[in-house]
């Protein structure tokens, strides 16, 4: 019930800011596609580079869409608007509030991915996005929404939200299998980057898109991130002395 309340709140926000949310979801992935995909015409592993790039971009927007939908919103609600106080005093179980944020964030990530898929639909490729691709993208969204929830409890001012974006989301966007394969990275760094959630998602979405079999070990890795950061978020909301 509490989960539905948070989803209702997210839906109200989505309806209110529909144009802003949609345009924001489109701008940077579209730029990346134009510059790297269409501007710099090249090939990767004997295939058009777009076949490599598009699944990476789609995986990336589920990350950025989910993360930004939660981190900005939660930080502002907790530190600036103090709207979290309304939730804290209510009988809604706080774990349901957290789960609502995670699901709502993941849905916003999915929305961003669907917008990009619609935008690139005129481009002729052999890429396939199956229900399994969408399930993996949704899982990726839940992971990054959960990371955003946990970080929003650490934020000391609402200007910290953009900083988290700079420290976490931007490096992952560039390094995690989006624009180039992690196989080309030096030993040590490669293993670290490959273990990051976006690398796993990009890998699986790309494998399905190119007609191959995804390494479902990636799902286990994503679930592990989800469990760890959800536990941290629950601990924060129940145990943090000063919210």
């Amino acid at each position, binding site marked *: *019930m*509490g989960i*539905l*309340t948070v989803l*209702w*709140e997210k839906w*109200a*926000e989505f309806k*209110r*800011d529909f144009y802003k949310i949609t345009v924001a979801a489109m701008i940077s992935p579209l730029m990346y596609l134009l510059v790297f995909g269409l501007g710099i015409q090249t090939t990767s592993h004997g295939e058009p580079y777009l076949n490599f790039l598009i699944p990476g971009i789609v995986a990336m927007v589920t990350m950025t869409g989910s993360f930004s939908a939660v981190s900005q919103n939660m930080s502002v*609600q907790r530190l600036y*608007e*103090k*709207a*979290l*106080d*309304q*939730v*804290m*005093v*209510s*009988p*809604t*179980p*706080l774990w349901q509030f957290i789960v609502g944020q995670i699901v709502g964030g993941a849905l916003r990530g999915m929305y961003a991915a669907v917008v990009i898929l619609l935008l690139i639909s005129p481009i002729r490729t052999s890429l396939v996005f199956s229900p399994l691709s969408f399930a993996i993208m949704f899982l990726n969204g839940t992971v990054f929404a959960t990371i955003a929830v946990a970080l929003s409890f650490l934020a000391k001012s609402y200007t910290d939200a953009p900083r988290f974006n700079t420290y976490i989301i931007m490096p992952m966007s560039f390094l995690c299998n989006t624009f180039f394969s992690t196989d080309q990275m030096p030993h040590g760094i490669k293993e670290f980057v490959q273990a990051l959630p976006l690398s796993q998602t990009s890998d699986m979405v790309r494998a399905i898109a190119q007609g191959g079999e995804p390494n479902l070990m990636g799902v286990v890795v994503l679930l592990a991130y989800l469990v760890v950061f959800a536990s941290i978020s629950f601990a924060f*909301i*129940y*145990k*943090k*002395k*000063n*919210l």
Partner: protein
Amino acid sequence: MIEIRNLTKRFGDFVAVDHLDLAIETNEFMGLLGPNGAGKTTTISMMSTVLLPTEGEILVDGQQLNRKAAAVKRKLSVVTQEYSMRQDMTMNEVMEYQGRLYYMRKKEIRAKTAELFEFAGLSDFGHRTVRHLSGGMKRKLMICRALMVEPEILLLDEPTAGMDALARRQMWDLLRSLKDRNLTILLTTHYIDEAQALCNRVAFIDGGKLDVVDAPLALIDQLGPFAVDHLEDGKLVSRYFPTREAAIARLQELPDDAVLRATTLEDVFVERVGHRLTRG
């Protein structure tokens, strides 16, 4: 009934609330009175579970209040000092969100919103966004939001802070009308006249410590209901008397600039705590 037992909150070395013990009876309108920084808001924040106590506990009808105590929290509603609501929501959305957080049905939410907006004179503004409301309207909306869920206990943290004199009087009328709703109310304020006008009992708090709890008139009677002020070496000196006759007798001994007046709750606070409510 609310029982606050040994409640303490420390932020590092700073003790914001220091072993507070207070009992608030059912249907009582209790005022927690103290200057800025006395620990009033920290106390309310612990009662709304936004802050967890360093020591002590809060019991509501014998049950401990904490973040997991949904049944206890169901009885509570809070009007915080800050405008704690989504600034981009409309007033109707703020009310619907509150209703949903308390598991109310949509039909019930609509009916209650209409009733409360009528009660607070906000009926024409339901579609207005919070950020476009005046301070007074935001305060009224927060009270409507708190009443939406028919709480048994209402916590009001400086509900008239930042309001002009007229808006404050209107808010007092609104708060006075809450007495008919069989609510237990804890009001924190640093406006002495507000506590005197609204509360059955007041508790003085300063430096996080509770000083005294009693009815405003009883506190004034203990000090003496008549005050005589005069200047002594450029400083205002007040003396208190149990009868008008005694006060007049003293007045006649003093120079012409001495004045006789009724003792206020602020006089009681100054005498007990050693400084005025508004420092400056």
